[in-house]
């Protein structure tokens, strides 16, 4: 019973923040500054999601996450498909784990 309560409660508090913008966003005509803020959100959010989180993937081994992150950075400079960027960062981490950590 406790488990079901936890699951349903978690589902509600997760869906509500996701849903709120769908309910009100198009009811207003937003000023230019707000539209600039909205347009900037993806860049700000991804910046915050990436750093310092990528260093904490393995708590005692920040270099492992750093290596994976740098690999992704260099591969994405080459304009490779996103799957290859992911594969590259996964591969370097597996190699480093195998040989060093």
């Amino acid at each position, binding site marked *: 019973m406790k488990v079901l309560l*936890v699951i349903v409660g*978690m589902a509600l508090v*997760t869906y509500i923040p996701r849903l709120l913008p769908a309910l009100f966003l198009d009811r207003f005509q937003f000023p230019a500054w707000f539209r600039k803020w909205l347009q900037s959100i993806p*860049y700000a959010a991804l*910046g*915050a999601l990436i750093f310092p*989180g990528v260093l904490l993937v393995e708590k005692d081994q920040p270099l492992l996450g750093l290596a994976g992150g740098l690999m992704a950075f260099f591969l994405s400079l080459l304009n490779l498909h996103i799957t290859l960027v992911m*594969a590259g960062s996964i591969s370097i981490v597996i190699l480093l784990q195998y040989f060093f950590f």
Partner: protein
Amino acid sequence: MESKPSDLEIKSSSQLVQGIQAGLPIFLGYFPIAIAFGTLAVQAQLNWTEAVLMSLIVFAGASQFVGVSMFLAGAGVAQIIATTFFLNLRHLIMSLAVNDQMRHFSGGWKGFLSFFITDETFALLTLGGGDHRSERRTPTYMAGLMITAYLGWVTGTAVGGLGAGFIPADITTAMTVGLYGLFIGLLVPPARKSLNFAIIAVSSMILNWALGLFMDAGWAIVLATIFAAGLGIILIKEDV
């Protein structure tokens, strides 16, 4: 009578296929991590159906790991739910950006698609797709992308919960770095084209790191996103 499908149908089925293709990297990234989640959930005395139910109706990786760990540690119901709420508040900000692209969708589509907003689907929907981004803003494309990601999470949980797949900790670590690779791979190309967006992203990293020194990581991400995106108000000159 000719039984040619209408232009609209052709368009909408190819949009679905494109959406599914776009969502595949997330499917592959989620699947092994969901196996690890399913394994952990069963170790925390949830049964298989409960683990799968959680992935089906919550669909939020980080908070599911935290929720199950708290459950294992004997935390109370309210405590777990409150933690989940704060951990997922960032989705409110992300949903603003995603819903901004869904302005012309019906209310039903918006409510339905909003359920599937995660860090990864948000990242792909806002920054993925390169220069063809705006043509792809259709309900079918977005549904294809998001449901593909969702299926990776749910099926992975089912496999892990059954104990059918064991994912060593090293592999989970590597796959988690893979999801960071997704974020980086999506952020770098547009940030290279626009100095403003590069400045916003780097400022957000620094701000998030600084805020994280004296507050919870979940709050730091929310505040860093709000304030760093605020830089856009000053930096972006043209009307949008």
